[in-house]
């Protein structure tokens, strides 16, 4: 009797997550997959096959765009880590009490407005008649207006800015759990700042670094607004390409195939990253 009740309780607690997985994750992906393996022959005539996937590998434009997107996302992740680590270290180890809360809050405040507004903010700063260009002209550093928008560097700035919070938060959590006495012991035993960083801090923070990197990489790879708005005439982004297939070309079949490939290839890159950093997914996600 009692075990029945607890069983019921267990299933009731399980129901929301199962429902969520099934209705919002699994079913749409099954639908997407079915669309992706139908090839269009004529109006309202379709045939089952893997032709759409073949298009991705056969047309250099598509896989080149994917490679470009992946490489830039990896670069954005690395930059976010380099910028985010000192911030997280400072918040976690060198501040206490109210300062700590204030600094943490300051990292979060920009995220209270939508991504679109933040991206427009960058456009106002970077454009030819924008704040930076005008200021530089007034103080006499440059003689004519300078265009900082519509290039890959602008995309990179946007991506790092958009995702830095998702690097700082897991890093602060893991660095918080590092006992200060371990660092002191390191100095007592004659360690230098670099050796302590290398031998004690980074190994301890590794789960936080890896989980932060995974989140930032996925966010950058799947970002649509930032590359479209800040990027220039040569800046192709894979998600923009999927949007084009769905909306302007009415080619849902190829769009679905590209969406599936984005999922598969990005998962492969994350898996490779975990192998290279010798971390397991359960370890990173469990501790961070």
């Amino acid at each position, binding site marked *: 009797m009692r075990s029945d009740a607890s069983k019921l309780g267990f299933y009731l607690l399980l129901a929301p997550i199962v429902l969520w997985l099934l209705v919002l994750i699994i079913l749409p992906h099954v639908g997407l997959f079915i669309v992706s393996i139908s090839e269009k022959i*004529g*109006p*309202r005539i379709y045939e089952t096959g893997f032709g759409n996937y073949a298009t991705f590998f056969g047309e250099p*434009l598509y896989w*080149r*765009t994917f490679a470009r997107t992946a490489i830039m996302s990896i670069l954005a992740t690395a930059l976010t880590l380099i910028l985010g680590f000192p911030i997280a270290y400072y918040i976690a180890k060198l501040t206490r009490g109210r300062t700590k809360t204030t600094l943490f809050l300051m990292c979060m405040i920009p995220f209270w407005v939508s991504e679109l507004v933040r991206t427009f903010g960058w456009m106002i700063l970077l*454009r*030819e*008649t924008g704040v930076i260009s005008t200021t530089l002209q007034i103080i006499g550093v440059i003689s004519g207006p300078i*265009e900082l*928008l*519509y290039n890959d560097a602008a995309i990179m700035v946007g991506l790092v800015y958009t995702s830095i919070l998702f690097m700082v938060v897991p890093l602060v959590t893991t660095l918080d759990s590092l006992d200060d006495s371990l660092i002191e012991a390191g100095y007592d035993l004659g360690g230098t700042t670099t050796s302590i960083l290398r031998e004690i801090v980074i190994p301890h923070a590794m789960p936080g670094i890896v989980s932060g990197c995974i989140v930032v990489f996925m966010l950058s790879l799947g970002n649509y607004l930032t590359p*479209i708005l800040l990027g*220039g*005439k*040569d800046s*192709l982004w894979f998600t923009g*390409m999927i949007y*084009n*297939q*769905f*909306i*302007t*070309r*009415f*080619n*849902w079949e190829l769009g679905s195939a590209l969406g599936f490939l984005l999922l598969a290839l990005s998962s492969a890159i994350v898996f490779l990253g975990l192998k290279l950093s010798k971390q397991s997914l359960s370890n990173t996600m469990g501790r961070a």
Partner: protein
Amino acid sequence: MKTTIATSLIVVTTLTAPIAHAETLRLLTWGGYAPEEVIAKFEAETGHTVEVTTSNNEEMIAKLRATNGGGFDLAQPSQDRITSAQEEFGIYKPIDMSRVHSELFIPSMLEATAANTTFEGEVYGLPHVWGTSGLVVNTAEAGAVQDYVDLCDASVAGKVSYRLKRPTLIGFAYSMGLDPFAAYNDTGKYQDILNQVEAKLTECKPNVKAYWGGGDEIKNLLRSGEVVASMAWDTGGWQLNADNPDITFVAPKSGALGWIDTFVLPARGRADDAAYDWINFVMRPDIAAMITNTAGNFTAAVDGDAGVSADLKARYQGSFDQTAIDNIKWYPPVPAGLEALEGATLDRINAAN
């Protein structure tokens, strides 16, 4: 007892009677085509309520395709995009002409739209707002730009913008002396035209500052002076002209491209009564003038230009003399499948270095 039943019956009928006629009209349209004041007037006169979603041609078709023609009761795609969408996805239902006050429409436009939106013997579209796309030029700095190909001129290098969409391909083809509309039904010939345009646009790419996506984006670029010549809609040029007299819409020598936005009924729309009421309401000359004054484009309503502001009329006449009007290239219906060819061309231009 009897009286109670009778009273409750009366109460129920009086409560339900207006509800049975008043519907919610879910309108899928372009920005500016359903101004607040027009909606308020319509709601006051008919009792219907209106929910507006603004969109563009491609998104309208994609939205209706996703729901097999549901979710909206009236949509306004351009007349050239209706038959192919109907052929491929079956997202519209035919117009019942007996419910439309056809005397409100300019007869030639009504006929032309009916001819262009007929699929398997049924008419799917009614004309509403029309306009053109061509060049918006800062005449003080880029007065030499008279045609699409002039955007590739060295004198405006780095200060040019256009969209990477099908109107750009068509416009460039015309200004290169080709006739893309005549080749619409000959895939081989059309591909040949696309190849020539692709070569031209790839060569022209260093001249481009950025490809614009939305109307506000190009207006900002022109207003700030970062761009001095671009391909854009006539209304955008006239709006900018109000702020800066140097900037205006120029009808290209090879002809502006003319479009007509229509009324279509989505296949699974639920409020047909409200949809027909809306059509008959907005085509009244006084309402049509209100829409022209906010959207900036003229409508297919008889006498719809009577109440239009004098400023807008002056700008229109400044951009279009009689030859320019006669030279407008009206979009014929796009055959199904043509977008795939154009898409591949646009992708290659975007990727070219």
